[in-house]
């Protein structure tokens, strides 16, 4: 007695298992990374953007909600922690170069972290955004978990902060190469540090595709700016909306 394959039953079984969405996430990224490599790492062919577009289309087509998707994708998401720790390896391998750059890093951190917060707040305020929106977007340049904590503490909307953070990261990662080429800034250390500071981990991911030096300085800027922004945001918000 043979039974025909019941595809609906198979789908119902697989779509409830974390394996399916883990496989979809890694496969979509593999395709996106092939496309990015084939384009010669063209900044406009960003692997995050392509992978997200593919996955979002699949989720919409199959009527899958984000909670179900994340049950599988969380295994990939979890690796962000070990990847952050792994930055210690390029740091120690290039410790001499980093030590030489301490003064430029300190000055660029001070100027960049204040610019990131103050410009976002002042521009949004001048366009009529209310205080809650200002607190929401002020930490947009730092990594998601830290930005959401800052936003929550100061009366912002953490879920909207997460959207602003990812949008900032993707935008920064896409424009960084053509923008600095146009400005004539060639130092890999300066370019990496700027993109890590302005566009956190997604900018750092782009920098690592260009060179280990750029990636390392991006990673350092990302870590330093997470701390600096937590200190700066309350002061800037007090100045703009007392």
């Amino acid at each position, binding site marked *: 007695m043979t039974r025909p394959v019941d595809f609906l039953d198979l789908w119902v079984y697989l779509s409830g298992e974390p394996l399916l969405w883990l496989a979809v996430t890694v496969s979509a990224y593999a395709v996106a990374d092939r496309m990015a490599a084939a384009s010669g790492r063209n900044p406009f062919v960003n692997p995050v953007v392509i992978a997200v577009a593919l996955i979002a289309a699949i989720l919409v087509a199959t009527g899958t909600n984000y909670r179900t998707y994340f049950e599988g994708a969380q295994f990939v998401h979890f690796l962000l922690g070990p990847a*952050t720790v792994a930055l210690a390896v390029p*740091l120690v391998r290039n410790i001499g170069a980093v030590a030489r750059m301490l003064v430029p890093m300190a000055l660029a951190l001070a*100027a960049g972290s204040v610019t990131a917060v103050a410009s976002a707040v002042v521009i949004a305020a001048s366009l009529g955004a209310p205080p809650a929106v200002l607190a929401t977007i002020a930490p947009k340049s730092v990594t998601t978990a830290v930005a959401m904590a800052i936003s929550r503490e100061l009366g912002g909307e953490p879920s909207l902060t997460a959207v602003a953070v990812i949008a900032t990261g993707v935008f920064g990662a896409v424009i960084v190469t053509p923008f600095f080429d146009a400005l004539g800034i060639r130092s890999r250390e300066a370019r990496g540090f700027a993109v890590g500071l302005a566009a956190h981990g997604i900018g750092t991911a782009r920098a690592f595709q260009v060179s280990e030096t750029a990636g390392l300085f991006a990673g350092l800027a990302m870590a330093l700016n997470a701390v600096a922004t937590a200190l700066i945001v309350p002061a800037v918000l007090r100045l703009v909306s007392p």
Partner: protein
Amino acid sequence: MVQAFAILLACQLVGEGIVHLTGVPVPGPVLGLILLAACLWLREARFSAGRTPLAATPLAGTANGLLGHLSLLFVPAAVGVVQQGGVLARNGLPIVVALIASTVLTLAVTAAVFVWALRFVRGGDGA
């Protein structure tokens, strides 16, 4: 590879533990990074004779693999954001304009100050 992963996870675990106990306002993985860097630096500085160079260790291979595909690790969070993309659009023009203009400005100011400050680097050629 397994050993390397154990080292990364152990450093993160210690970092998270210290953050939980002391409440220092630094993410646990960043403390883990500092801890691992201190250990590796000691290894380089004091026990370098007769050791495998850091670049040739399994830890370096695993670290390169993770960092080379850092983009992949942001995909799950970014998918969630796309699903809420409407929120950004509904909250309108001020947010979108502020994010774009502020990101461009931040890139320019940070890199310009960095390049300017290269003049203070000993033996630096200002490039």
